[in-house]
């Protein structure tokens, strides 16, 4: 009698505990997984890479862009990394450069260099959801990879290709995002993002980004060599093909100031 009562009470208590803390627990678990993934990249200090961007419309017609990206790691958890993107093709925009200081919740600082007039312009960064150079990547897809820009909630664990992935739902905390939420697949072996789904402001599936061909650099830092973005609503695609990765090249804050934009080619 007593034992049965105790058993029932325990069951009831367990059920109560589960229902009252589950949301928090799921968020705690989601954050832990996202943080572990984020931490796997700590200490890269700086990197440079060449990106070939291939834009493909619904009919399959291709257009290409080539750019170089330089990134400076900012250790402070309360601010994001600094990055510099320099275009080398199409040739009429050769030398065009975009300098970004990512923030966590505040608006990023961005400067654009226009070589035709040799002019540096501070630009509004509230255009987060606008297309980056006509591609299927939005500005925020490039600059919003900081851990604390989102809430994270663990959904489930499931197989993904050759891995087992944790599936995390994340909601942007920063203003002007074009997304209500994103679903991320993070593998349990090396903790890298394998797939990311973007849901638009109406909560409809907008885009899927796949991360392919991960390589390990400097024995520590994983980088996908191919990023494939597919827009489900327009059937357009943009591929980012990375090459020439270099780490710890000696870049510092003085290489990420607006004054260097005019000679950053």
């Amino acid at each position, binding site marked *: 009698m007593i034992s049965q009562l105790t058993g029932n009470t325990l069951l009831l208590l367990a059920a109560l505990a589960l229902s009252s803390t589950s949301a928090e627990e799921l968020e705690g678990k989601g954050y832990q997984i996202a943080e572990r993934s984020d931490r796997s990249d700590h200490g890269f200090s700086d990197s440079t890479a060449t990106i070939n961007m291939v*834009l493909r*419309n619904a009919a399959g017609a291709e*257009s*290409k862009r080539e750019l170089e990206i330089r990134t400076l790691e900012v250790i402070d958890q309360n601010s994001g990394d600094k990055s510099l993107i320099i275009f080398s*093709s*199409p*040739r*009429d*925009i*050769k030398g065009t450069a975009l300098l970004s200081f990512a923030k966590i919740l505040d*608006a990023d*600082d961005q400067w654009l260099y226009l070589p035709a*007039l*040799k*002019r*540096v*312009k*501070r*630009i*509004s960064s*509230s*255009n987060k*959801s*606008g*297309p980056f*150079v*006509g591609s299927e990547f939005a500005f925020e897809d490039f600059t919003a990879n900081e851990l604390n820009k989102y809430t994270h909630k663990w959904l489930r664990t499931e197989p993904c290709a050759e891995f087992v992935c944790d599936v995390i739902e994340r909601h942007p905390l920063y203003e*002007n995002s074009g997304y209500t939420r994103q679903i991320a697949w993070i593998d349990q072996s090396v903790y890298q993002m394998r797939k990311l789904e973007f849901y638009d402001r109406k909560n409809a599936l907008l885009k899927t980004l796949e991360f392919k061909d991960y390589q390990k650099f400097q024995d520590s830092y994983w980088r996908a060599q191919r990023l494939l973005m597919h827009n489900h609503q327009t059937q357009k695609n943009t591929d980012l093909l990375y090459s020439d990765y270099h780490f710890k090249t000696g870049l*510092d*804050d*003085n290489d990420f*100031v*607006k*004054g260097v934009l005019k*000679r950053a*080619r």
Partner: protein
Amino acid sequence: MRAKAFIGCLYLSLLLSLPTQADFSGELGVEARWFPKDAQYAGQLNALQTSVFAEPEWNISPTENTRLSFIPFLRLDARDKDRTHADIREAYWLYIEDDWELLAGVNREFWGVVESRHLVNVINQIDAVENLDGEDYLGQLMLNITLQKAYGRFSFYLMPLFRERTFNGAEGRLRPALVVDNNTTRYQSRAERWHTDVALRYSHYVGDWDIGLSYFDGTSRAPRLVSNADHSRLIAYYDQIKQLAVDLQYTHQAWLWKFEGLAREGQGHRFLASVIGLEYSWFQLFDSHADLGFLIEHLYDGRDQKEAPSSFQDNDLFLGLRYSLNDIQDSAALVGLLRDLEDQSSSLRLEAERRIGSHLKLELEAQLFMNSNANPTSMAFQQDDFIVLRLSHHY
């Protein structure tokens, strides 16, 4: 025809002489400019003015810390011999250290934030025959030292050789009633074009503010135009000026608040000039990828129009719309209206551009002059409405 053959040969010889380690690029183009109205002054061309131009570019990094740049420019104009001209836009050697750099040679510098007038931009002479918008500049010979500190960037310029402004010839449109004599130039300084000009600039940003402070002491880039002894021609006269200038931008969400101001002495009374304005962008217009920007600027210039080089922009309002499709072809258009608030003379300008394929670019420009006879400076342009179509190959 001869011009085209010449350009072709030039292009070919440039390609053949290309050093393998250099980064070689550039632009080759054809331009047609159409004036629908008959000319106002005797000798001026009518209807179609065609030209070709080339701007090859070499960038070399001989060592990790040094850069060499060479950008010559050539335009051949079929109708106006004074618009046919060559220039060296850039030819410099640059040495780069972590927190300083040194540049020797010919270069271009751009300062400023507003759209309707490049008020504080003072280093380079305007290549005025190129376009009416004052956005083409002649290369300036200089020694330039720049220091980058945590609290900002300091640049010092020594400029030993002055460049005269280019002016359209007797056949050209968009000129004053009298032709500017390109062979006779007068200077206030006895050193004439060899006067050493100096400039300093500080620029930085703090949060949402971008700030620039500059000082210039030297030969005014803008000349006063004075008539010669028999009043048959205009002579460009270059004063010595000193000016202190500031440019500011406050960036908040989709709003850009802008200000440029200067105080200048050396051209009659000391005077102030300013441009104050703002730009708002409506991103992703009606859920499309396109952006629409709204621009409004007020231009003030306190100069005495007789003592100083005359200026259109004494008390003017500029309204503009910028439309960017954000498509693969980078299609964009800008429409701007500049109106004198005192005499109501105005000018409407349209610029549109679009890439074709991966190497060609098509540009359209048009400008209308309205109520020009109310203003003594713009009166000369009242018959000179024009449309330009430009096709260029970028390699």
